[in-house]
Protein backbone atom coordinates (compact mmCIF):
# COMPACT_ATOMS: atom_id res chain seq x y z
CA UNK A 1 0.00 0.00 0.00
CA UNK A 2 1.46 3.30 -1.08
CA UNK A 3 -0.64 5.71 0.96
CA UNK A 4 0.87 5.93 4.43
CA UNK A 5 -2.28 7.47 5.96
CA UNK A 6 -4.17 4.29 5.07
CA UNK A 7 -1.33 2.22 6.55
CA UNK A 8 -1.48 4.17 9.82
CA UNK A 9 -5.27 3.92 10.03
CA UNK A 10 -5.07 0.16 9.46
CA UNK A 11 -2.45 -0.08 12.20
CA UNK A 12 -4.85 1.75 14.51
CA UNK A 13 -7.67 -0.67 13.69
CA UNK A 14 -5.30 -3.58 14.27
CA UNK A 15 -4.48 -2.13 17.69
CA UNK A 16 -8.15 -1.81 18.60
CA UNK A 17 -8.77 -5.40 17.49
CA UNK A 18 -5.88 -6.64 19.59
CA UNK A 19 -7.36 -4.71 22.53
CA UNK A 20 -10.62 -6.63 22.15
CA UNK A 21 -8.57 -9.81 21.90
CA UNK A 22 -6.99 -8.96 25.26
CA UNK A 23 -10.49 -8.59 26.77
CA UNK A 24 -11.37 -12.09 25.55
CA UNK A 25 -8.13 -13.35 27.12
CA UNK A 26 -9.23 -11.97 30.54
CA UNK A 27 -6.58 -9.25 30.54
CA UNK A 28 -8.82 -6.25 31.21
CA UNK A 29 -6.02 -3.94 32.35
CA UNK A 30 -3.91 -4.68 29.29
CA UNK A 31 -6.87 -4.19 26.95
CA UNK A 32 -7.59 -0.85 28.56
CA UNK A 33 -4.02 0.29 28.02
CA UNK A 34 -3.81 -0.99 24.46
CA UNK A 35 -7.08 0.69 23.50
CA UNK A 36 -6.01 4.08 24.84
CA UNK A 37 -2.36 3.89 23.76
CA UNK A 38 -2.26 1.80 20.60
CA UNK A 39 -5.49 2.89 18.99
CA UNK A 40 -5.45 6.45 20.28
CA UNK A 41 -2.11 8.10 20.94
CA UNK A 42 0.14 6.04 18.66
CA UNK A 43 -2.11 6.51 15.61
CA UNK A 44 -2.22 10.22 16.31
CA UNK A 45 1.57 10.55 16.66
CA UNK A 46 2.13 8.64 13.43
CA UNK A 47 -0.31 10.91 11.61
CA UNK A 48 1.48 14.00 12.91
CA UNK A 49 4.79 12.52 11.79
CA UNK A 50 3.40 11.78 8.33
CA UNK A 51 2.32 15.39 7.85
CA UNK A 52 6.00 16.26 8.08
CA UNK A 53 7.58 13.32 6.27
CA UNK A 54 5.16 13.01 3.36
CA UNK A 55 2.28 10.61 2.95
CA UNK A 56 3.34 8.42 0.03
CA UNK A 57 5.93 5.70 -0.15
CA UNK A 58 8.37 5.06 -2.96
CA UNK A 59 7.74 1.43 -3.75
CA UNK A 60 11.32 0.23 -3.94
CA UNK A 61 11.64 -3.00 -2.05
CA UNK A 62 15.14 -4.31 -1.68
CA UNK A 63 15.29 -8.03 -2.33
CA UNK A 64 11.74 -8.96 -1.34
CA UNK A 65 12.28 -12.61 -2.27
CA UNK A 66 15.32 -12.92 -0.01
CA UNK A 67 13.37 -11.30 2.84
CA UNK A 68 10.49 -13.69 2.24
CA UNK A 69 12.83 -16.68 2.37
CA UNK A 70 14.46 -15.46 5.58
CA UNK A 71 11.07 -14.80 7.17
CA UNK A 72 9.71 -18.20 6.15
CA UNK A 73 12.74 -20.03 7.55
CA UNK A 74 12.60 -18.17 10.87
CA UNK A 75 8.84 -18.66 11.06
CA UNK A 76 9.16 -22.37 10.33
CA UNK A 77 11.80 -22.78 13.03
CA UNK A 78 9.70 -20.86 15.53
CA UNK A 79 6.66 -23.03 14.80
CA UNK A 80 8.84 -26.13 15.16
CA UNK A 81 9.87 -24.71 18.52
CA UNK A 82 6.28 -24.34 19.67
CA UNK A 83 5.55 -28.07 19.28
CA UNK A 84 6.85 -28.71 22.79
CA UNK A 85 5.01 -25.80 24.36
CA UNK A 86 2.13 -26.33 26.79
CA UNK A 87 -1.29 -26.22 25.19
CA UNK A 88 -3.35 -23.05 25.06
CA UNK A 89 -5.28 -22.52 28.29
CA UNK A 90 -3.68 -25.50 30.06
CA UNK A 91 -3.98 -25.19 33.83
CA UNK A 92 -0.77 -27.14 34.54
CA UNK A 93 1.58 -25.19 32.26
CA UNK A 94 4.82 -24.14 33.99
CA UNK A 95 4.00 -20.42 33.90
CA UNK A 96 1.16 -20.97 36.37
CA UNK A 97 3.50 -22.45 38.97
CA UNK A 98 6.19 -20.55 40.92
CA UNK A 99 5.14 -17.01 41.90
CA UNK A 100 1.68 -16.77 40.32
CA UNK A 101 -0.16 -18.86 42.97
CA UNK A 102 1.32 -16.68 45.68
CA UNK A 103 0.08 -13.51 43.97
CA UNK A 104 -3.40 -15.01 43.55
CA UNK A 105 -3.73 -16.63 46.99
CA UNK A 106 -1.85 -14.31 49.33
CA UNK A 107 -2.05 -10.83 47.80
CA UNK A 108 -5.29 -10.08 49.69
CA UNK A 109 -3.61 -10.68 53.05
CA UNK A 110 -0.28 -9.13 52.09
CA UNK A 111 -1.36 -6.09 50.08
CA UNK A 112 -5.11 -5.86 50.55
CA UNK A 113 -5.94 -4.78 47.02
CA UNK A 114 -8.67 -6.57 45.04
CA UNK A 115 -7.08 -6.09 41.63
CA UNK A 116 -4.14 -8.51 41.59
CA UNK A 117 -2.62 -6.80 38.57
CA UNK A 118 -2.35 -3.55 40.55
CA UNK A 119 -0.85 -5.25 43.58
CA UNK A 120 1.78 -7.00 41.45
CA UNK A 121 2.49 -3.86 39.43
CA UNK A 122 2.72 -1.44 42.31
CA UNK A 123 3.87 -3.57 45.20
CA UNK A 124 5.47 -6.95 44.43
CA UNK A 125 7.23 -5.78 41.29
CA UNK A 126 7.37 -2.06 42.01
CA UNK A 127 11.09 -1.99 41.30
CA UNK A 128 10.38 -3.19 37.77
CA UNK A 129 7.71 -0.54 37.32
CA UNK A 130 10.16 2.09 38.54
CA UNK A 131 12.49 1.06 35.73
CA UNK A 132 9.69 1.35 33.18
CA UNK A 133 8.75 4.82 34.41
CA UNK A 134 12.36 5.93 34.08
CA UNK A 135 12.45 4.55 30.52
CA UNK A 136 9.30 6.55 29.64
CA UNK A 137 10.83 9.66 31.20
CA UNK A 138 14.04 9.15 29.24
CA UNK A 139 12.14 8.66 25.98
CA UNK A 140 10.32 11.92 26.68
CA UNK A 141 13.63 13.71 27.14
CA UNK A 142 14.89 12.13 23.92
CA UNK A 143 11.94 13.48 21.93
CA UNK A 144 12.44 16.85 23.55
CA UNK A 145 16.09 16.90 22.49
CA UNK A 146 15.33 15.79 18.95
CA UNK A 147 12.32 17.93 18.16
CA UNK A 148 12.19 21.03 20.33
CA UNK A 149 12.28 24.25 18.35
CA UNK A 150 13.13 27.58 19.74
CA UNK A 151 10.23 29.87 19.07
CA UNK A 152 10.91 33.51 18.57
CA UNK A 153 8.17 35.81 19.83
CA UNK A 154 8.01 37.65 16.50
CA UNK A 155 6.82 34.46 14.76
CA UNK A 156 3.90 34.06 17.13
CA UNK A 157 1.55 36.38 15.27
CA UNK A 158 2.14 34.63 11.97
CA UNK A 159 1.56 31.16 13.42
CA UNK A 160 -1.55 32.38 15.19
CA UNK A 161 -3.03 33.77 12.01
CA UNK A 162 -2.28 30.51 10.19
CA UNK A 163 -3.95 28.53 12.96
CA UNK A 164 -6.96 30.81 13.18
CA UNK A 165 -7.75 30.39 9.51
CA UNK A 166 -7.80 26.64 10.05
CA UNK A 167 -9.64 26.55 13.35
CA UNK A 168 -12.47 28.91 12.50
CA UNK A 169 -13.87 26.39 10.07
CA UNK A 170 -14.53 23.85 12.79
CA UNK A 171 -16.90 25.65 15.12
CA UNK A 172 -19.21 22.72 15.90
CA UNK A 173 -16.31 20.39 16.56
CA UNK A 174 -14.73 22.93 18.88
CA UNK A 175 -17.84 23.49 20.98
CA UNK A 176 -18.68 19.79 21.21
CA UNK A 177 -15.14 18.96 22.26
CA UNK A 178 -15.03 21.76 24.77
CA UNK A 179 -17.94 20.12 26.57
CA UNK A 180 -16.32 16.68 26.36
CA UNK A 181 -12.94 17.60 27.83
CA UNK A 182 -13.98 17.95 31.52
CA UNK A 183 -15.61 14.52 31.38
CA UNK A 184 -12.48 12.97 29.88
CA UNK A 185 -10.41 14.54 32.66
CA UNK A 186 -12.88 13.29 35.29
CA UNK A 187 -12.77 9.80 33.79
CA UNK A 188 -8.97 9.87 33.91
CA UNK A 189 -9.11 10.71 37.63
CA UNK A 190 -11.65 7.92 38.18
CA UNK A 191 -9.34 5.44 36.45
CA UNK A 192 -6.44 6.70 38.57
CA UNK A 193 -8.23 6.21 41.90
CA UNK A 194 -10.20 3.12 40.96
CA UNK A 195 -7.12 1.11 39.96
CA UNK A 196 -7.22 -0.82 43.26
CA UNK A 197 -10.70 -2.18 42.66
CA UNK A 198 -10.98 -2.67 38.90
CA UNK A 199 -8.99 -2.31 35.72
CA UNK A 200 -7.10 0.96 35.79
CA UNK A 201 -4.18 2.70 37.44
CA UNK A 202 -1.53 5.27 36.78
CA UNK A 203 -0.52 4.16 33.28
CA UNK A 204 -4.03 4.19 31.81
CA UNK A 205 -5.08 7.31 33.71
CA UNK A 206 -2.00 9.17 32.52
CA UNK A 207 -2.69 8.35 28.89
CA UNK A 208 -6.37 9.35 29.14
CA UNK A 209 -5.51 12.59 30.92
CA UNK A 210 -2.95 13.38 28.24
CA UNK A 211 -5.42 12.63 25.46
CA UNK A 212 -7.80 15.26 26.85
CA UNK A 213 -5.06 17.89 26.73
CA UNK A 214 -3.99 16.75 23.26
CA UNK A 215 -7.59 17.04 22.06
CA UNK A 216 -7.67 20.60 23.33
CA UNK A 217 -4.37 21.40 21.63
CA UNK A 218 -5.59 19.93 18.35
CA UNK A 219 -8.74 22.01 18.20
CA UNK A 220 -7.64 25.28 19.72
CA UNK A 221 -4.09 25.43 18.42
CA UNK A 222 -0.83 24.69 20.12
CA UNK A 223 -0.19 28.25 21.23
CA UNK A 224 -3.53 28.42 23.07
CA UNK A 225 -2.83 25.08 24.73
CA UNK A 226 0.62 26.27 25.72
CA UNK A 227 -0.93 29.31 27.32
CA UNK A 228 -3.19 27.01 29.38
CA UNK A 229 -0.41 24.64 30.39
CA UNK A 230 3.12 25.89 30.19
CA UNK A 231 5.60 23.46 28.68
CA UNK A 232 8.17 23.97 31.40
CA UNK A 233 5.44 23.13 33.93
CA UNK A 234 4.81 19.82 32.13
CA UNK A 235 8.53 19.07 32.18
CA UNK A 236 8.53 19.74 35.91
CA UNK A 237 5.57 17.41 36.50
CA UNK A 238 7.27 14.64 34.49
CA UNK A 239 10.32 14.88 36.73
CA UNK A 240 8.23 15.13 39.90
CA UNK A 241 6.42 11.88 39.00
CA UNK A 242 9.67 9.93 38.82
CA UNK A 243 10.91 11.68 41.96
CA UNK A 244 7.73 10.77 43.88
CA UNK A 245 8.14 7.11 42.91
CA UNK A 246 11.81 7.02 43.84
CA UNK A 247 11.40 8.91 47.10
CA UNK A 248 8.58 6.60 48.22
CA UNK A 249 11.14 3.82 47.87
CA UNK A 250 13.73 5.85 49.77
CA UNK A 251 11.34 6.59 52.63
CA UNK A 252 10.65 2.89 53.10
CA UNK A 253 14.40 2.31 53.00
CA UNK A 254 14.91 4.93 55.73
CA UNK A 255 12.12 3.38 57.81
CA UNK A 256 14.10 0.16 58.01
CA UNK A 257 12.50 -1.85 55.19
CA UNK A 258 13.68 -2.76 51.71
CA UNK A 259 13.51 -0.33 48.79
CA UNK A 260 9.82 0.11 47.92
CA UNK A 261 8.69 -2.13 50.81
CA UNK A 262 5.52 -0.33 51.87
CA UNK A 263 4.84 -2.37 55.02
CA UNK A 264 7.00 -0.01 57.03
CA UNK A 265 5.40 3.20 55.75
CA UNK A 266 2.64 3.06 58.33
CA UNK A 267 1.97 1.36 61.66
CA UNK A 268 -0.45 -1.07 60.03
CA UNK A 269 1.23 -2.93 57.13
CA UNK A 270 -1.94 -3.02 55.00
CA UNK A 271 -2.46 0.73 55.43
CA UNK A 272 1.21 1.19 54.54
CA UNK A 273 0.71 -0.86 51.39
CA UNK A 274 -2.31 1.24 50.42
CA UNK A 275 -0.40 4.46 51.03
CA UNK A 276 2.58 3.24 49.02
CA UNK A 277 0.47 2.08 46.09
CA UNK A 278 -1.45 5.35 46.11
CA UNK A 279 1.76 7.39 46.02
CA UNK A 280 3.52 5.46 43.29
CA UNK A 281 0.39 5.29 41.13
CA UNK A 282 0.35 9.07 41.35
CA UNK A 283 3.99 9.17 40.36
CA UNK A 284 3.33 6.92 37.37
CA UNK A 285 0.25 8.89 36.34
CA UNK A 286 2.05 12.25 36.49
CA UNK A 287 5.04 11.03 34.50
CA UNK A 288 3.06 9.20 31.82
CA UNK A 289 0.56 12.03 31.30
CA UNK A 290 3.18 14.75 31.10
CA UNK A 291 5.60 12.78 28.92
CA UNK A 292 2.85 12.04 26.38
CA UNK A 293 1.69 15.66 26.36
CA UNK A 294 5.32 16.72 26.01
CA UNK A 295 5.86 14.38 23.06
CA UNK A 296 2.74 15.67 21.32
CA UNK A 297 3.61 19.33 21.97
CA UNK A 298 7.03 18.87 20.46
CA UNK A 299 5.74 17.05 17.39
CA UNK A 300 3.06 19.70 16.89
CA UNK A 301 5.53 22.55 17.51
CA UNK A 302 7.86 21.12 14.89
CA UNK A 303 4.94 20.87 12.51
CA UNK A 304 3.91 24.49 13.09
CA UNK A 305 7.44 25.58 12.33
CA UNK A 306 7.41 23.49 9.17
CA UNK A 307 4.09 24.98 8.07
CA UNK A 308 5.37 28.50 8.67
CA UNK A 309 8.42 27.86 6.52
CA UNK A 310 6.26 26.50 3.71
CA UNK A 311 3.93 29.47 4.02
CA UNK A 312 6.88 31.84 3.67
CA UNK A 313 8.19 29.99 0.63
CA UNK A 314 4.86 30.23 -1.17
CA UNK A 315 4.80 33.91 -0.46
Amino acid at each position, binding site marked *: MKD*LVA*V*VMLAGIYSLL*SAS*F*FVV*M*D*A*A*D*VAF*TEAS*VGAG*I*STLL*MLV*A*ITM*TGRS*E*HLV*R*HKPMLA*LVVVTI*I*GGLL*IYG*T*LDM*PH*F*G*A*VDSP*IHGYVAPRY*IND*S*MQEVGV*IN*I*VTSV*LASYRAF*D*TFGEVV*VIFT*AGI*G*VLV*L*LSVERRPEDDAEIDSLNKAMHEQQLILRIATKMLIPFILLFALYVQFHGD*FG*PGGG*FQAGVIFASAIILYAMLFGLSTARRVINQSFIQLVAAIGVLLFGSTGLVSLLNGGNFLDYNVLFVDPIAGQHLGIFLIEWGVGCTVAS*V*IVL*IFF*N*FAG*RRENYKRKKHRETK
Partner: protein
Amino acid sequence: MMFMGLYNYWIVVVLMMIGLYIVIAHGNLIKKIVGLTIFQTSVFIFYISIAKVDGGTAPILEDGVSQYSNPLPHVLILTAIVVGIATTALGLALAVRLKEAYGSIEEKHIQDLDNHTLENQSKDEQGC
Protein backbone atom coordinates in the same frame (compact mmCIF):
# COMPACT_ATOMS: atom_id res chain seq x y z
CA MET B 1 -5.61 -33.23 16.86
CA MET B 2 -2.53 -33.27 19.01
CA PHE B 3 -1.30 -29.91 17.80
CA MET B 4 -4.61 -28.05 17.73
CA GLY B 5 -3.98 -26.67 21.22
CA LEU B 6 -0.97 -24.76 19.91
CA TYR B 7 -2.75 -22.50 17.46
CA ASN B 8 -2.20 -19.41 19.63
CA TYR B 9 1.58 -19.69 19.13
CA TRP B 10 1.12 -20.06 15.40
CA ILE B 11 -0.92 -16.88 15.19
CA VAL B 12 1.83 -15.13 17.15
CA VAL B 13 4.52 -16.49 14.83
CA VAL B 14 2.61 -15.43 11.71
CA LEU B 15 2.08 -11.88 13.05
CA MET B 16 5.70 -11.68 14.14
CA MET B 17 6.93 -12.73 10.70
CA ILE B 18 4.63 -10.19 9.00
CA GLY B 19 6.22 -7.52 11.16
CA LEU B 20 9.71 -8.79 10.45
CA TYR B 21 9.04 -8.89 6.70
CA ILE B 22 7.88 -5.27 6.73
CA VAL B 23 10.98 -4.20 8.63
CA ILE B 24 13.30 -5.99 6.20
CA ALA B 25 11.63 -5.40 2.85
CA HIS B 26 10.26 -1.87 3.07
CA GLY B 27 12.55 1.12 2.73
CA ASN B 28 10.16 3.71 4.13
CA LEU B 29 11.00 4.48 7.74
CA ILE B 30 7.38 5.10 8.83
CA LYS B 31 6.43 1.70 7.42
CA LYS B 32 9.35 0.15 9.26
CA ILE B 33 8.02 1.64 12.50
CA VAL B 34 4.54 0.25 11.76
CA GLY B 35 6.19 -3.12 11.14
CA LEU B 36 7.95 -2.88 14.49
CA THR B 37 4.64 -2.15 16.26
CA ILE B 38 3.09 -5.24 14.64
CA PHE B 39 6.08 -7.29 15.80
CA GLN B 40 5.71 -5.80 19.26
CA THR B 41 1.98 -6.57 19.43
CA SER B 42 2.66 -10.17 18.48
CA VAL B 43 4.88 -10.47 21.56
CA PHE B 44 2.09 -8.93 23.67
CA ILE B 45 -0.36 -11.50 22.30
CA PHE B 46 2.13 -14.27 23.07
CA TYR B 47 2.40 -13.23 26.72
CA ILE B 48 -1.31 -12.68 27.22
CA SER B 49 -2.28 -15.94 25.55
CA ILE B 50 0.02 -18.03 27.75
CA ALA B 51 -1.43 -16.30 30.81
CA LYS B 52 -4.91 -17.53 29.91
CA VAL B 53 -6.29 -20.40 31.99
CA ASP B 54 -9.28 -22.44 30.84
CA GLY B 55 -12.27 -21.51 32.97
CA GLY B 56 -10.42 -18.66 34.67
CA THR B 57 -11.51 -15.04 34.84
CA ALA B 58 -9.76 -11.67 34.94
CA PRO B 59 -7.38 -11.45 37.93
CA ILE B 60 -9.61 -9.28 40.12
CA LEU B 61 -10.43 -11.06 43.36
CA GLU B 62 -14.06 -11.96 43.86
CA ASP B 63 -15.94 -14.26 46.23
CA GLY B 64 -16.80 -17.64 44.80
CA VAL B 65 -14.18 -17.55 42.06
CA SER B 66 -11.10 -19.69 42.49
CA GLN B 67 -9.61 -19.83 38.98
CA TYR B 68 -7.89 -16.68 37.75
CA SER B 69 -5.68 -16.11 34.74
CA ASN B 70 -2.05 -15.43 35.54
CA PRO B 71 -1.60 -11.75 36.57
CA LEU B 72 2.17 -11.56 36.08
CA PRO B 73 2.27 -11.44 32.23
CA HIS B 74 -0.53 -8.86 32.37
CA VAL B 75 1.65 -6.58 34.49
CA LEU B 76 4.66 -7.00 32.23
CA ILE B 77 2.66 -6.26 29.07
CA LEU B 78 0.76 -3.35 30.59
CA THR B 79 3.97 -1.49 31.26
CA ALA B 80 5.49 -2.68 27.97
CA ILE B 81 2.64 -1.08 25.98
CA VAL B 82 3.24 2.35 27.51
CA VAL B 83 7.01 2.02 27.14
CA GLY B 84 6.33 0.93 23.53
CA ILE B 85 4.50 4.15 22.67
CA ALA B 86 7.29 6.23 24.21
CA THR B 87 9.94 4.45 22.16
CA THR B 88 7.78 4.58 19.01
CA ALA B 89 7.52 8.34 19.51
CA LEU B 90 11.31 8.48 19.74
CA GLY B 91 11.56 6.54 16.46
CA LEU B 92 9.11 8.88 14.77
CA ALA B 93 11.07 11.87 16.05
CA LEU B 94 14.21 10.42 14.49
CA ALA B 95 12.34 9.92 11.19
CA VAL B 96 11.22 13.56 11.26
CA ARG B 97 14.78 14.74 11.84
CA LEU B 98 16.07 12.50 9.03
CA LYS B 99 13.48 13.98 6.71
CA GLU B 100 14.73 17.46 7.60
CA ALA B 101 18.36 16.53 7.12
CA TYR B 102 18.07 14.44 3.93
CA GLY B 103 14.74 15.52 2.46
CA SER B 104 13.55 11.92 2.38
CA ILE B 105 12.70 9.03 4.68
CA GLU B 106 13.39 6.32 2.11
CA GLU B 107 16.30 4.20 3.24
CA LYS B 108 17.68 4.00 -0.28
CA HIS B 109 17.74 7.77 -0.90
CA ILE B 110 19.47 8.36 2.41
CA GLN B 111 22.06 5.70 1.61
CA ASP B 112 22.67 7.17 -1.85
CA LEU B 113 23.13 10.65 -0.44
CA ASP B 114 25.57 9.32 2.16
CA ASN B 115 27.55 7.41 -0.44
CA HIS B 116 27.66 10.50 -2.61
CA THR B 117 29.10 12.69 0.17
CA LEU B 118 31.59 9.95 1.10
CA GLU B 119 32.80 9.72 -2.51
CA ASN B 120 33.18 13.47 -2.68
CA GLN B 121 35.16 13.45 0.53
CA SER B 122 37.54 10.75 -0.67
CA LYS B 123 37.99 12.61 -3.98
CA ASP B 124 38.85 15.78 -2.07
CA GLU B 125 41.41 13.93 0.03
CA GLN B 126 43.03 12.46 -3.10
CA GLY B 127 43.12 15.93 -4.64
CA CYS B 128 45.10 17.18 -1.66
